């Protein structure tokens, strides 16, 4: 190896040390290690929790997964979440815009929305049987319902909290009412609309898992429940982990879309 190459490789390792093996990274890894340790110790030394599998058992369960089966279940849940979320967006977003932008729409819809909203979405499960005969539709309805209110609420809130000087300025520049909505109000409310969508997708996952556990029509919720009835608890925990991962993935997806539309917010 020549000197310059040596130098280069030395420089490379220096970079690695600075960027990868630093205290911040170590502490972050530590956080996870500590969590896993606390879990193991709790299970080991308390009689109460002895039935619960240890982290290692869950790790072993990972290799017993049948990829074909698990990916089908993931896909099923994903499609239900996506379907419910998109319908929620399709109905909730225009409604939120109307309530936030027009006083008449506000008087017409807001009291009803405000009356129904405090009911936890899960409480709707018994009633959905009456709405739809098909189980698939019931599940999608429940996921839709979970997404609906956060989207309506945040869209509405985002619009009503727009800094008054922005529409005033736009009005001075001679913008018409449609232009005001599309070019001023919606861009200004965009950050909160995306916050609403992130909350919505979280609740959508909650709803899909709850619905699947009851409906026995496949999906990750069903898969977890199925392994629970078989008393295969490492699989149950693994399933929980996969559900969490999927939720996080969806949240990141929305962030990515949001960042694409709101470049102006995170440029410095």
């Amino acid at each position, binding site marked *: 190896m020549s000197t310059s190459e040596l130098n280069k490789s030395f420089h490379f390792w220096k970079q690695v040390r600075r960027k990868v093996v630093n205290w911040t990274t170590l502490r972050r890894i530590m956080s996870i290690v500590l969590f896993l340790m606390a879990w193991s110790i709790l299970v080991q030394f308390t009689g109460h929790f002895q039935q619960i599998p240890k982290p290692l058992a869950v790790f072993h369960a990972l290799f017993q997964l049948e990829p074909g089966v698990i990916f089908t279940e993931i896909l099923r849940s994903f499609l239900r979440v996506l379907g419910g979320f998109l319908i929620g967006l399709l109905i909730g977003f225009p409604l939120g815009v109307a309530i936030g932008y027009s006083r008449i729409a506000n008087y017409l819809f807001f009291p009803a929305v405000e009356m129904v909203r405090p009911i936890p979405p899960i409480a709707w499960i018994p009633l959905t049987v009456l709405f739809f005969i098909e189980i698939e539709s019931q599940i999608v309805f429940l996921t839709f319902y979970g997404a609906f209110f956060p989207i309506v609420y945040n869209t509405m809130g985002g619009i009503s909290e727009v*800094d008054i*000087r*922005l529409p*005033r*300025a*736009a*009005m*001075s*520049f*001679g*913008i*018409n009412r449609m*232009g005001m909505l599309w*070019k*001023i109000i919606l*861009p*200004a409310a*965009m950050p909160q609309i995306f916050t609403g969508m992130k909350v919505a997708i979280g609740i959508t996952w909650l709803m899909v898992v709850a619905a699947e556990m009851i409906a026995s029509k496949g999906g990750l919720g069903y898969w977890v429940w199925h392994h629970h009835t078989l008393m295969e608890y490492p699989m149950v925990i693994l399933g929980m982990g996969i559900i969490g991962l999927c939720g996080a993935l969806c949240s990141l997806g929305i962030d990515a879309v949001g960042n694409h539309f*709101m*470049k*102006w*917010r995170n*440029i*410095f």
Partner: protein
Amino acid sequence: MADSNNRGEVVFEDVTRAVKTRKTEEIILHHCSFVVESGKLTVLIGPSGCGKTTIINLVAGYETPDRGKVLIDGIPVTRPDWERLVVFQETALFPWLTCYDNVMFGPLATKVMTRQEAHEQAIKLLEKVGLGDFMEKYPIQLSGGMQRRAELARALINRPTIMLMDEPFRGLDAMTRELMQEYYLRLVEESHGTHLFVTSEIEEAIFLADKLIIMTNKPSRAKRVLDIDLPRPRKAEVLRSKRYLELKANTLEILHEEAVKASRASGKADINIEASIRK
């Protein structure tokens, strides 16, 4: 823009405007009358909280008077119009648009000029206010002074008959402020539109103005109108001239009476003006 020389005259005719809350009614303007001559730069100065922003809102059409009339070229103001543009105290640039797109906003909304014409104008104006290299930046990436300059360009591209400046340079540091005043004067002296500029800084007021309207305390009206006969184009040297100092002393005296009244009325003096008097 020769035609705007005889357009854009603002007349306040016996205007009264009150702000109502649930229980109280506070009168901001009380039988207030004055004239803002067309094609001139008129500066409104008065103790803080004397309703200067209300006057701007009335001219802009954001508010309407409770009694009396606000006339522009003889026609009462009923709603906002792109012929009257406001530059605000704090920046009101659209944060989701780049500097260039912010400036292009007005022309594209009103379609008074073609896109190509607007584009050329935008570039010319942005270069004139020293933002030629910052056209593709978002407002968040600009300093306070730059944002204010972008706002000036955004308003001026529409060739408004009347420009309303609501303490546009407040909150900028002294150096930037001076620079802004010079940029502003250069633009005004070229454009010949009517300008109504509101401030609570005496130096700024006299340095910029053709005419100075001094307001009383709340409930306020125009107390005195001074002609500022300093030469144009105005340069910073004017600040050392004898005439400038005379005008300043004169203004201070009038304002002082009001400041004293205000401190008697509310128990707190207007810090801005008190501080200037001590200098």
